[in-house]
């Protein structure tokens, strides 16, 4: 019988955690017998290998088959084919990758990309160091876009009423609605996503010139309307705000996850981290982050002070801060944390001009206006916050734009609708009943990557090109323009939006390349955009040699230098909007947000992203309803009820009732979630998403759009959670998978070591005096020591700046051809990602501090895995790597049994897809694709080490520091991961190893890991207690 403990008991237990400050999950905290049993099973993933036993007949059958197949292996293998070029392209050296600069658009905003190409096949995405939004970093979406490119489920053919058709037939069919539009342009409508592309903008402008009353609508389900409208309230017109976290000493986040979401988040994370990194003897001060947030987020985890409040309550806190600064009246009733706010206000006042108050996308426009008013009052605008013209070609309130379209469709005014990208049938607000209105339009055409929910209701479906397949251009968060250049010809007969618009404009088929290039030729020659008439070729000036040089430079650099929008001198209004009614504290509030891994649903068919543990909850393959422990208690899901579902392996299904709708969703209890509200991510539940998103006509996750209403896009009050009594629902949550068990290694050994900046200044060695962790310093061993005369590869991870964003995890997956396994196998703890990010909590369950810790292979010098391998498949290299030789491995799994860090992954089944032809060109040719029965693990990207070493040796020079960059390091937005040669005393990694805050995980085991960590240093305000 499980122990019965309730929420108050929970709180007490956190109190009694003497010597074990850090906890990973509520299950660990409850210390139930089930949990102990679970953790003490060394390899729970092995226990479920066979669903039923093997009987004699099966055994004989299997053995017979094995013997028969064994005979086949002796057969001579067929000759491999080798195919030469007819004319080999210049600059292409077979076997050496080329890198091309381009940009990935998301929500219309471009992030600079360097795409690696192996003989014409793009295989990996890296960030472009010259691009202001990337600075060389990548996020999970960018990394995973390479799988999106090759996705065999992408639409491959033009369809008319579901039947295969052709592009030319589509152009023919366009003529009659276009004819009708010449008399009344209002009958023709264009629906796009957010457009920042100057070329696309010019094309739309030209189309409008042809059909003057044509209307252009824009719609993005992950809406930035609140930001746009909030800034308009503050500045009087649509503007774009750019934040400079490198100039901010104090940052206040009003429900903004600025390090992980929204335009420029990679840049923001880098700038923020640069002010947070502590280097001994160098760093005099670090920044401070206050987060007032409605659900656990990456930025909230970084915060020095975090306040979980309901989404609708954030506004009151914003008003309280504003009032403290003399802007507007104080909220009524006053917010409870008066002293907290007062200390925050004093901190802001001490750092005038060097502070940022930033509001989140889900917060209403008023909060954005208040944030800007505060920034104005503090003199931050023009300093740490700059304002530019909008990056969009035409900023509009997209919700109103879509509402207008739906009204016109219902009234019959729309005779032809062309949708360029997006999936409004799936993601439009529920009360618009978009699908019904859409079907009243006599001519419906949809350009999209997949034959999706909207396509099936359209007359015409055109497959869209991926950004790696076509030419375009796009603006970054600060307005910098990048030319999007393709890496490969369209794989699936796709057409770009430029081509579809070209078809609408009429005239000859113009390639996207010509469209983009001639646009920029006109810009370079100072010719204004074409306003009227057709596409006569005469208007485009001939290419001058100068333009050719400039154009090539733009393509080479990936940015048009100096194209960032200049800062405007603008002042935000400090007359803040009047307060509305606050949601009653008694009603449960539903909070909606985009999913951290599948976004608005567009990445639902991307298995890498589906299997990526969500940064805060570590749930994979679905969306769950997040509630706080206290709220869970209140709805009757207390610890006693939870105990049978222990170990985060399963949960219960609940009915979420909201405004007449009911959704059956798994409930998930999250420490640090505000009480009285529940958070749900939209983007799941695709009915026509592809084999990954909608396997066998089922759906993965729950479609949340039916509870997203136009008057409550970020959710609202009045939700109800009802327990269903359904059987336990399995969840693929990776938090307790492959975790280091403190009990196994003698109690808490300080896996996470944290201190405040003040404590660090008093005692820089705090990591060595860690409570309860007596560190062994002797190096006694039964084995003779290794010597490392050449290189000694090592890694240092600066935990202070890790946001847990998962960029490294996907980068590793892409670089190392790591397979995905599916929800069922994740549930059996067989996920394959070599790099995991452990999450730790410290403090009370209502609002714990959160720590993220990336754990790759430690490359121990005294590695426990090596001596136990019976076949010598894992051995020590001369440079200190724990080599893993896949072709030698026979799958005993002794090594992973003996690994205290649990960083080895065993390939239980045929996880790698050897069959799908489309996925073969995607793989990194420098890394073996592993098969079943083989152990695999991180080897510090040894393929990159070898490539760099060979280049250096061929050029007869020593390897330079920074020449070898691991995939995780390259992706990291905050430069938290540093890799290099420890034997080179000048290398960055050798310097970091000398930092007083450097420590190893489980150093007491004398494994002497090469991967070490820098202790977490946070900067709490001494005026705030607790």
């Amino acid at each position: 019988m499980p122990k019965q403990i309730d929420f108050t008991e929970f709180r007490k237990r956190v109190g009694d955690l003497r010597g074990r400050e850090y906890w990973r999950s509520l299950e660990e905290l409850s210390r139930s017998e089930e949990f102990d049993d679970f953790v003490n099973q060394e390899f729970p993933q092995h226990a479920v290998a066979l669903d039923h036993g093997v009987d004699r007949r099966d055994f004989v059958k299997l053995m017979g088959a094995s013997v028969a197949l064994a005979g086949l292996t002796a057969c001579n293998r067929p000759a491999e084919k080798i195919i030469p070029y007819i004319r080999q392209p210049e600059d292409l050296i077979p076997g050496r990758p080329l890198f091309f600069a381009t940009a990935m658009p998301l929500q219309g905003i471009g992030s600079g990309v360097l795409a690696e190409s192996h003989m014409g096949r793009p295989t990996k995405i890296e960030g472009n160091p010259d691009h202001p939004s990337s600075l060389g970093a990548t996020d999970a979406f960018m990394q995973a876009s390479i799988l999106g490119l090759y996705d065999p489920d992408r639409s491959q053919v033009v369809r008319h009423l579901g039947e295969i058709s052709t592009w030319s037939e589509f152009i023919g069919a366009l003529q009659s609605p276009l004819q009708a539009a010449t008399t009344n342009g209002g009958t023709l409508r264009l629906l796009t996503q957010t457009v920042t592309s100057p070329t696309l903008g010019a094309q739309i402008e030209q189309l409008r010139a042809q059909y003057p009353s044509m209307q252009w609508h824009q719609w993005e389900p992950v809406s930035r309307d609140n930001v746009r409208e909030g800034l308009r309230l503050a500045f009087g017109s649509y503007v774009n705000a750019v934040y400079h976290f490198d100039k901010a000493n104090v940052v206040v986040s009003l429900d903004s996850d600025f390090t992980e979401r929204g335009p420029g988040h990679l840049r923001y994370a880098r700038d923020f981290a640069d002010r947070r990194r502590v280097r001994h003897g160098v760093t005099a001060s670090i920044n401070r982050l206050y987060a007032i947030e409605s659900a656990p987020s990456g930025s909230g985890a970084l915060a020095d002070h975090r306040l979980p409040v309901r989404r609708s309550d954030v506004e009151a806190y914003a008003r309280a801060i504003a009032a403290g600064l003399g802007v507007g009246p104080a909220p009524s009733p006053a917010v409870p944390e008066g002293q907290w706010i007062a200390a925050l206000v004093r901190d802001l006042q001490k750092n005038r001009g060097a502070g940022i108050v930033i509001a989140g996308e889900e917060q209403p426009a008023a909060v954005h206006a208040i944030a800007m008013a505060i920034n104005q009052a503090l003199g931050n605008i023009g300093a740490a916050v700059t304002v530019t013209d909008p990056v969009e070609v035409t900023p509009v309130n997209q919700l109103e734009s879509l509402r207008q379209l739906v009204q016109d469709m219902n009234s019959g005014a729309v005779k032809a609708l062309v949708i360029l990208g997006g999936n409004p049938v799936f993601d439009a607000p529920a009360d618009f009943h978009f699908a019904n209105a859409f079907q009243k339009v006599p001519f419906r055409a949809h350009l999209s990557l997949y034959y999706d929910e909207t396509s099936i209701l359209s007359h015409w479906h055109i497959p869209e090109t991926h950004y790696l397949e076509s030419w375009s251009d796009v603006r970054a968060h600060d307005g910098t323009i990048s030319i999007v250049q393709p890496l490969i010809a369209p794989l699936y007969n796709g057409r770009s939006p430029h081509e579809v618009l070209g078809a609408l404009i009429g005239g000859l088929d113009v390639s996207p390349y010509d469209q983009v290039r001639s646009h920029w030729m006109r810009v370079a020659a100072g010719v204004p955009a074409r306003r009227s008439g057709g596409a006569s070729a005469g208007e485009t000036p001939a290419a001058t040699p100068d333009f050719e040089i400039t154009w090539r430079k733009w393509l080479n650099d990936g940015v048009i230098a100096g194209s960032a929008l200049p800062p405007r001198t603008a002042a935000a209004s400090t007359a803040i909007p009047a307060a509305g009614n606050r949601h009653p504290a008694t009603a449960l509030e539903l909070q909606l947000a985009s999913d951290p891994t599948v976004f608005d649903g567009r990445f639902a068919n991307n298995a890498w992203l589906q299997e990526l543990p969500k940064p805060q909850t570590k749930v994979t393959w679905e969306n769950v309803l997040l509630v706080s422990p206290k709220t869970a208690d209140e709805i009757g899901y207390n610890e006693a009820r939870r105990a049978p579902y222990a170990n985060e392996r399963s949960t219960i299904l609940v009915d979420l009732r909201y405004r007449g709708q009911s959704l059956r969703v798994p409930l998930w209890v999250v420490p640090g979630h505000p009480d009285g509200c529940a958070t749900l991510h939209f983007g799941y539940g695709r009915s026509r998403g592809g084999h990954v998103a909608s396997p066998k006509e089922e759906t993965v996750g729950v479609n949340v759009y039916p509870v997203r209403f136009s008057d409550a896009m970020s959710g609202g009050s009045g939700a109800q959670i009802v327990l269903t009594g359904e059987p336990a629902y399995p969840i693929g949550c990776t938090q307790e998978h492959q975790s280091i068990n403190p009990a196994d290694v003698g109690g808490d050994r300080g896996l996470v070591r944290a201190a405040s900046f003040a404590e660090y200044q008093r005692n820089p060695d705090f990591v060595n005096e860690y409570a309860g962790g007596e560190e062994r310093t002797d190096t006694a061993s039964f084995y003779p020591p290794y010597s490392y005369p050449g290189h000694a590869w090592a890694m240092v991870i600066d935990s202070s700046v890790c946001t847990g964003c998962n960029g490294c995890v996907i980068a590793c997956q892409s670089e190392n051809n790591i397979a995905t396994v599916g929800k069922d196998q994740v549930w059996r703890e067989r996920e394959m990602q070599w790099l995991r990010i452990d999450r730790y909590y410290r403090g009370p369950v209502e609002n714990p501090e959160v720590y993220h810790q990336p754990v790759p292979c430690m490359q121990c010098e005294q590695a426990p895995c090596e001596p136990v391998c019976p076949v010598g498949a894992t051995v020590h290299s001369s440079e200190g790597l724990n080599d893993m030789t896949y072709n030698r491995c026979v799958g005993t799994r002794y090594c992973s049994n003996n690994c205290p860090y649990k960083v080895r992954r065993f390939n239980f089944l045929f996880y790698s897809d050897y069959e799908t032809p489309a996925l073969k060109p995607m793989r990194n040719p420098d890394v073996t694709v592993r098969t079943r029965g083989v152990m695999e693990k991180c080897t510090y990207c040894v393929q990159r080490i070898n490539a760099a070493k060979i280049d250096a040796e061929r050029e007869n020079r020593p390897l330079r520091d920074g020449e070898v960059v691991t995939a995780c390091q390259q992706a990291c937005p905050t430069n938290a991961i540093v890799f290099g040669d420890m034997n080179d005393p000048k290398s960055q990694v050798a310097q970091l190893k000398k930092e007083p805050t450097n420590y190893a995980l489980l150093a007491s085991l004398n494994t002497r890991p090469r991967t070490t960590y820098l202790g977490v240093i946070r900067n709490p305000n001494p005026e705030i207690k607790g």
Partner: protein
Amino acid sequence: MAQIFHRSTNTLSRVTIFGAVFIVGFVLWVIGGIVRSPYATDQGIRREQPVPFSHQHHVAGLGIDCRYCHTSVETSSFAGIPPMATCMNCHSQIWTNADMLEPVRASYASGKPLIWSRVHRLPDFVHFNHSIHVSKGIGCATCHGRVDEMALTFQAAPLTMQWCLTCHRNPEQFVRPRDQVFNMGYVPVNQAELGPKLVREYKILGPGVLTSCSTCHY
């Protein structure tokens, strides 16, 4: 009760029991032999090619350097196979009507490449880099044999891991001066003295590095 087995069964069973050791040993010896034999390694097998290209004629007869066609051998892991345009550099001028070269001309004209059968093939879990071997003074002929004497190209070496390791363990036995790398007929004069000297001069890493698994397997 009557005897079921004849007396001779005793002998038979003794022979079987004691012979088992030898039988197992023999089977292992046969398997060991097979995996090292050309049957498994493809050593010495001449593959059918779309055009019977003769290295003997082009290299020994005409004196064309390896790098004229295998252009990336000094810069890349892959030595490269010549594009059809390389063939046509000469064959647009000479032997322009030879029947034997018809597939080459057709391929160049139509843009449809010839499909060659690969002669030297390593498993996918081995990563071999031509450029580093060439720059460290390992001659083409050391691994590929006297290609200049091959009318039809075949694999001269077994390409087994054991074979790779003979050199990775003792590079001094095989290294040659860099200017002799592409010389097919190079014969070392005093390898015992020259080898160690070149190993030092070319900074060839020690067996500790060269025999680490991750040097080739990753």
